[in-house]
């Protein structure tokens, strides 16, 4: 009676450099390749590819953000697993470094021709998203 604890999803974010996040959360909002998806506990089993973007999660009535660099999300039962190329919690993001790498990528784009546009573009997107994720955390 009323002692029921809030149900959660166990979210695990794994990158080639290690486990970035592993905690129970009450809601996940991720950026899939076909748009944003919101996931609550009890969601149907679901698999999606992810874009370079910002993942939001709620835990303890607080919304927090994680930068997720493409990859894959699987939710099944009360477990969600994200396999990403890289991921960073918003509070860990070095905004200066992100700005620096965005500047570099933009420079490369300007020089044009000899470079791989897709790669430079992705690089800009990554940097922008990281900056945005960090800024979302800032005004608290």
């Amino acid at each position, binding site marked *: 009676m009323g002692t029921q604890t809030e149900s959660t999803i166990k979210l695990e974010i*794994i*990158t*080639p*450099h*290690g*486990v970035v996040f592993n905690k129970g959360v009450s809601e996940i909002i991720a950026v*899939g*390749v*076909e748009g944003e*998806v919101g996931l609550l506990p009890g969601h*149907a*089993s*679901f*698999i*999606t*590819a992810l874009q370079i973007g910002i993942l939001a999660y709620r835990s303890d009535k607080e919304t927090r953000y994680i930068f997720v660099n493409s990859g*894959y999300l*699987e939710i*099944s*039962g009360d477990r969600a*697993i994200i*396999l990403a*190329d*890289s991921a960073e919690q918003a509070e860990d993001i070095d905004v200066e470094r992100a700005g620096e790498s965005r500047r570099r990528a933009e420079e490369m784009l300007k020089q044009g021709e000899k470079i791989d546009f897709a790669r430079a573009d992705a690089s800009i997107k990554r940097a922008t998203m990281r900056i945005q994720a960090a800024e979302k955390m800032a005004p608290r």
Partner: protein
Amino acid sequence: MPALKEIRKRIGSVKSTRQITKAMKMIAAVKFRKIQNKMLALRYYAERMNSVLLDLVKNVDAVHPLLEVRPRKKVEIVALTGDRGLCGAFTSNVMKALPRLIKEKRGEGLEVSVSMTGKRGVDLFIRRGGHLRRSWVGLSGRVTYTNAQAIAMDIGENYLNETFDEVILLYNEFRSAIAQKVVAVPLLPLAPIVSEGAEARQEGAEFLYEPSQQEIFNRLLPKNIEIQVFSSLLESQASEEAARMTAMENATKAAGDMIDHLTLQYNKARQASITAELMDIVGGVEAIR
């Protein structure tokens, strides 16, 4: 007494060399541990990725250009070496195995192209008149997934547009801290990870997919190359640091032996000079009498 002074100087210089090799050994040990942690982290990711792919193949046709076995005409060898020396036979082992492998493949009537990582190997290969399709230097000590991705992407693209039909990785496999062995591992076409999965086609949890299963499969499969390249790079790095540890350990020991030897020489020379002086004095006294 120039001999004495000279020996003293040499002892001094060998001592400082020993200090350096000792420090290098310790640094190599720290780096080695770091890389081992990276290998563990990657293994977890790779296992997860594999199980995801296995899940997917239960439901999709595992058809992908990267899996397709084409008639072989050209083969690419990607050799992994280091950027820095002082690590024993680490680089030279690869550089010894490389011509052998090239010869073997040519013997099978295949055209061979070579790519390489690591400044040491690249310089040596070019000095010997070899031609490299691509080279990557400056990765030592900071192998990141992004580096591996860049290499994997280059290899993948060239494989898909049929620059070559087979890719082999040649690198120092990490056996243990004291044993490394050069291995040639086929990278492309990708080994059929899928056969077991297809058999296990079963009623599991029904998943919803976005986009389609096939598309997700197509997206994830190339990750396999990235993971393999990354893990080989890490293994090669671990081997390099382990080889450096052993080499520096040996150098430190050798320096110690040399110091002992020189000290003995020094003492002998000192004694000889004292004896000579005494003889002089005795000789002088005799003459006066």
